[in-house]
């Protein structure tokens, strides 16, 4: 009996050790990536990164045109995603509970949530770029909106379902209709959670490269007009990282660090807000 107990103890010890080792390996990889990002990107972060446009090969410059383009397209895409996503999420949580249609929409939304974003890019290319003969910031924004919407739908549904039924009943008892209760009471009570969905969506699309490659295309000049091809941070980083010029590669690392930090900060804010609204 003694040896059996010892055996079990040994097996358990090995298992615990292996799990700990797996965690150590995972963290080591992630530390290695962050270290690379910081050590190669930090030297490029400075005022000129934000104030000067991208340079010609072999000369110094910044990423102003790409940053502006990214902000414009992410902003437009996010605005559309918030409107569509909150309405659709509200439909799922308030009008379609327990219905078959609701189940189907929820299922397909979950599939869309993890669908390869490059296919969204192809779709928007076929939808907007090919028929109108031109890459544009609008097409890029639409592609980003399609990527962000499922995230907003999901968070909206989750947060609305967390709101107590008594809240709705109290509104109804005062004579308000369903829509009025949703807009004036439920949305208001859930606003932090709704904002969280927006932030998570924003964090996701600000690093997306694939859907922009053949929608907004990229632009080596400063352009704030969305009807023209538009630069974005991820596509510029992609182009610069694969180039043979040191200056471009350094800018790519600086841009990558910028995006990673932005995504982390937005995600952390979203997380804090989520905790406040009891969204897991």
């Amino acid at each position: 009996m003694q040896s059996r107990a010892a055996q079990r103890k040994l097996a358990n010890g090995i298992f615990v050790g292996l799990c700990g080792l797996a965690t150590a390996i995972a963290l080591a990889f992630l530390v290695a990536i962050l270290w690379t990002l910081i050590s190669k990107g930090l030297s490029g972060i400075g005022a000129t990164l934000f104030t000067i446009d991208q340079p010609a090969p072999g000369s110094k410059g910044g990423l102003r045109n790409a940053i502006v383009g990214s902000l414009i397209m992410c902003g437009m895409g996010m605005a559309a995603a918030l409107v569509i996503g909150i309405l659709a999420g509200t439909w799922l949580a308030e009008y379609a509970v327990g219905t078959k249609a609701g189940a189907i929409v929820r299922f397909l939304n979950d599939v869309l949530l993890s669908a390869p974003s490059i296919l969204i890019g192809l779709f928007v290319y076929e939808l907007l770029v090919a028929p109108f003969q031109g890459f544009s910031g609008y097409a890029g924004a639409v592609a980003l909106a399609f990527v962000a919407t499922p995230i907003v739908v999901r968070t909206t549904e989750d947060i609305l379902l967390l709101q107590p039924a008594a809240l709705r009943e109290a509104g109804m008892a005062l004579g308000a209709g369903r829509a009025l209760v949703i807009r004036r009471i439920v949305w208001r009570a859930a606003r932090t959670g709704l904002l969280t969905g927006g932030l998570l969506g924003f964090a996701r699309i600000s690093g997306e490269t694939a859907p922009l490659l053949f929608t907004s295309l990229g632009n080596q000049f400063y352009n704030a007009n969305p009807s023209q091809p538009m630069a974005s941070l991820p596509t510029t980083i992609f182009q610069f990282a694969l180039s043979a010029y040191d200056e471009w590669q350094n800018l790519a690392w600086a841009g990558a660090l910028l995006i990673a930090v932005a995504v982390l900060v937005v995600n952390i804010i979203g997380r804090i807000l989520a905790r406040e609204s009891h969204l897991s």
Partner: protein
Amino acid sequence: MASLFSTGTVTERQGAGETLFRFACAAAATLLMTALAGVVVSLAIGGWPAFRAFGPGFLFTATWNPVTEIYGAAGPIVGTIVTAGIALLFALPLALGVAIFLVEFCPATLAPPVAVAIELLAGIPSIVYGMWGLFVLAPWFAEHIQLPIALSTTPGSWADAFFSGTPNGANIFTASLVLAVMILPYMAAVFRELFLTVPAQVREAAYGLGCTPLEVVRSITIPSVKRSMIGVIMLGLGRALGETMAVTFIIGNAHAMPRSLFDGGSTIASTIANEFTEATGVLHEASLVALGLILFLMTFAVLALARFLLQGSER
């Protein structure tokens, strides 16, 4: 303002608002579904010329030649499946280990920060992983692993068949490694959430009977979420199949059927990302869109299965 346009009683006006709002919500949900249908339809239409020109042979030919305008999808399809498979092979045991460690063994003060760190890292854009793969992993791999192996194997041996290739580190294997590192935090985070849904009473009951932590994990935790675990694996696989940027940087972008693990290759997503804006003709573009349709069908099947298996485990 409202009174200018509205007629009728308060209840009637409110009724109109009710219908309108409900309609707007349903319309938004419908629009979302239309988007998904739109993806399939647009890919099918855009890829049609390629399917018509090459027939079913499109799936089984490995020629990809813009000069002769002959295109076959076999190379990228095999590349996609192989890279995703190898990535899963590496990421799955590590992700499981991380999740079990965090749920069962990690000191209570350490678990939350590590869990949050891993979840945050899952959100880092894939382009960052791709750059790390290209500038750090590939050179290291070429120098310390690929070159020694290439020098020590005899031409024609089985090892040569597995490990031959240009020793520059940009190949199918390193692309799979980058993919693995990328889906690892994601899968670990979802596994952890899943394990946390197993009621503490059940686990504590097993501990009370004298089970060791290994026995609790093996006979209580894992069996009670087995179905959802397969769902999580499918989610990771779906992610690996469709990942674009991390792979495009490092896979070497060769269209022929890969001859070995250390040979350059391509995936469907990397081929589209690399060539679409530079497509040389109608047939070239159509073939790329047709590749997109194949990728969509592959990921849709995997993700639909994942969601089906995961139903009920959430919330």
